């Protein structure tokens, strides 16, 4: 039997490429941005959809140099607590590209899974590298996804109560992304146009993550 994944890849219908723009906004201006996004995005009549997730980043490290470490990001919803929300996300190396490309492009696999994933990855040889909590709001316009979120350090006690957690910064992370099948480059133009509409409130750019890690 040919599995659905290979069928999906062959016919190029499996979404596995992420187009991404990032920016940040000071906490004090967050409300203005949320208001603007609510007007621009779908379901304007509803209040912005909140989310509160816990992300654990697992790493599989090899003994030899040719074995690059592999990172799996395991995420679940903390509030509302939902056992069906567990999923693994794999992100490939980001390609910044030249000026003609408006967004960052990277491989992206989102795989929903059962709640024993932490035990499973540990038994497979993965080690927990770092973890954090993300709290924010989620919007969508067509297939574009916009999140406005704040990253929190995990409390030393390991609890996920937001009141005891320490925020990483005084600003919110804003991400505009689409996960699409390969070769749909035109989506980057739609994203660029959408990002233009949020200026000058926020500047969404392709952030070269390689440069961040060097500094």
């Amino acid at each position: 039997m040919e599995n659905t994944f290979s069928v999906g890849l062959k016919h190029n219908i499996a979404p596995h490429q992420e187009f991404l723009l990032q920016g940040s906004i000071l906490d004090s201006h967050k409300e203005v941005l949320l208001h603007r996004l609510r007007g621009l995005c779908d379901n304007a009549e509803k209040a912005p959809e909140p989310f509160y997730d816990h992300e654990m980043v697992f790493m599989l490290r090899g003994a030899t140099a040719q074995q690059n470490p592999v990172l799996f990001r395991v995420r679940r919803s903390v509030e509302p607590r939902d056992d069906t929300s567990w999923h693994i996300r794999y992100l490939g190396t980001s390609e910044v590209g030249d000026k003609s490309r408006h967004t960052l492009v990277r491989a992206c696999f989102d795989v929903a899974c059962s709640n024993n994933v932490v035990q499973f990855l540990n038994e497979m040889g993965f080690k927990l590298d770092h973890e954090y909590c993300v709290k924010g709001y989620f919007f969508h316009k067509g297939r574009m996804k916009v999140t406005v979120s704040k990253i929190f350090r995990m409390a030393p006690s390991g609890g996920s109560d937001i009141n005891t957690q320490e925020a990483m910064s005084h600003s919110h992370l804003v991400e505009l992304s689409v996960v699409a099948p390969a070769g749909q480059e035109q989506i980057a133009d739609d994203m660029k146009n959408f990002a233009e509409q949020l200026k000058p409130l926020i500047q969404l750019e392709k952030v070269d993550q390689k440069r961040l890690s060097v500094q």
Partner: protein
Amino acid sequence: MGVVSVYMFPVPEGKSGQQVVESLQKSIELLGATKTGNFCVDCETFQTSIQNTQQRQVNILHSSDHPASCFAILDAGTCLVADSLFDGLMQKLKHYYQQRKGSKIESKGQRYEFGDFVFKVGSVSLASSFKGILLEIEYCPCIIAGDCWGLLKEMASSIVGNVAEQQPNVIKNKLEHVYTTADTMCQYLEHFNNYKKQTIPPTAVSTGR
């Protein structure tokens, strides 16, 4: 989705697999069961490729009854149920886990419905050579194995005989818990591993003269 028991159906000497499958299908049809299409359960094995470390195995199973899911089972028995995109994640781990060559084993055949029961008669093939027959019997209205084992056993014994008395290990360990498809996949894996361990029957050696 109910409680499932998978049995190994013996192929007596002197008969071909095809003959036994046909007579098994006939006896199920005689019960009054109706054909409801085909099914397939397949399994691929991935093994750690790093030397000097503990050998680990990941078995990836798919079932045609759950086409959007993928079941990953470790040696220790931990079973992760994930989207079928998990196959893509395994490809990303190819420097750590490599697919064992010729390890693809599958059980494929006819599916039948008979009232509250579902039968699946599968021919098992390892790297396209016939290995044996697996019969799956499912009792749909119940999800607690302990509550319907008697019924399931009675139905099974009319087809497979005394083998039905023996509870599959998976069921034995969780009689009072909710039965899931992951448990069915563990049963298939156990049978697949047994088939793989079987030594190839000695064939007549010709002297070449």
